[in-house]
């Protein structure tokens, strides 16, 4: 069958790809586009390992059709670091806020979106915001502390 032709923007760069109608954004990112940072955990929107941004909002890329990306702005973990790591990435390394790392790209994408919206979140707000990002290794404590510490650093740097 004929593939759909999609023109979109990924991490600020124009991008075109072909996909099947029922193919998920996650499949296209990880397959033809070679952006393997987003992970497939559950495939049903429960675990958050495939978190990307769609027009600045975090979404599960497993619950989005690739065809829906037409004309939209997509952000992935590959676009998070510039010349240097994003402060969240740096803090996660320093604080050992990851173990196996499968959840980490999704957690970072979600945490970045939170701090852009709310630079001074309470621990409660961080925990609720990240409730859709499951981690089976850390027990969450180090993740939450790393996000809180990054938020404090970023506020101090402003």
């Amino acid at each position: 069958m004929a593939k759909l032709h999609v023109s979109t923007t990924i991490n600020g760069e124009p991008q075109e790809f072909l996909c099947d109608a029922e193919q998920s954004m996650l499949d296209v990112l990880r397959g033809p586009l070679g952006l393997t940072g987003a992970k497939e955990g559950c495939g049903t929107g429960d675990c958050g390992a495939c978190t990307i941004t769609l027009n600045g909002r975090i979404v599960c890329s497993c619950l989005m059709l690739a065809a829906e990306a037409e004309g939209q702005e997509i952000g992935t973990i590959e676009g998070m670091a510039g010349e240097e790591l994003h402060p969240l990435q740096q803090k996660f390394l320093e604080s050992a806020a990851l173990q196996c790392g499968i959840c980490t790209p999704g957690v970072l994408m979600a945490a970045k979106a939170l701090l852009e919206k709310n630079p001074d979140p309470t621990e409660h707000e961080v925990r609720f915001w990240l409730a859709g990002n499951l981690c089976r290794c850390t027990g969450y404590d180090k993740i939450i502390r790393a996000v809180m510490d990054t938020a404090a650093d970023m506020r101090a740097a402003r």
Partner: protein
Amino acid sequence: MDVQYVAPKTLDEAIRAFAAAAGSGRILAGGTDLLVQMRNGIVSPGTIVDIKKIGELTSIEETKDGGFRIGAAVSGMVLREHPRLSKVWPGVVEAANLIGSTQVQGRATPGGNLCNGSPAGDSVPAMVAAAATVTIQGPNGRREMAVEKVPKGPGRLNLEPGEIVVSFNLPPRAKGSSDAYLRMIPRTEMDIAVVGCGVSLTMDKGTCTAARVGLGAVAPTVLLVEEAAKALIGSKLDEAALAKAAAACSAACRPIDDKRGTIAYRTKVAGVLLKRTALIAAERAGGK
């Protein structure tokens, strides 16, 4: 299998595409139910009609009379961010915002929640309590239907073939009115309601002058519990009135036993939630 994806820019085009697909068409709003169902092989659409490029389905409008028109494909996050909606209809917004994670909130819509046809959809009892109607459009034109009339049974709707839910219409509010929604789940987040209760009411000098009660997850479809509303109206929401309304809620329940809760538990909790929800709505409306 040859699946088509279409993203029409107008409602008329969407209606035509959906009608042309006959029974094999599926509407894509937030996709948080549809994509999971496709993945699990529960549905295999021939045509997927994405309705998010249509202005009327993706906008919120405050009408001149003080009501709201909410596009069926507006996400929960957009509902929450609306500057006025949470002030006038906090219960509707909190119900929609209980659905899923932050990621799901960015996508999941009240139209999808209703049309998925789950008896446990969180936004539905709050919409019923709010006396919301839906505007429906199909090949034979437009009509309006009360939200509680839309579900027919689990996964089944009282829509004609080819009809699409376009928007929710929330009525203008009398002074001293508010609403609330509570759900019971065995954990704090990310679960499906064992019982959901929406209450919308109007308070005048400590007396309840109007009320509507919606219950979810306790019957094959959402329930509008008129007997519970009658018990609240005219009272000062004292313990006797609340107990009577709670008993009416429990009496209305026709739940199932499943892994989330037993019939006895759901029936009892429906009454407990009614009391708590009514008091929150009253507090928001200006107090008892």
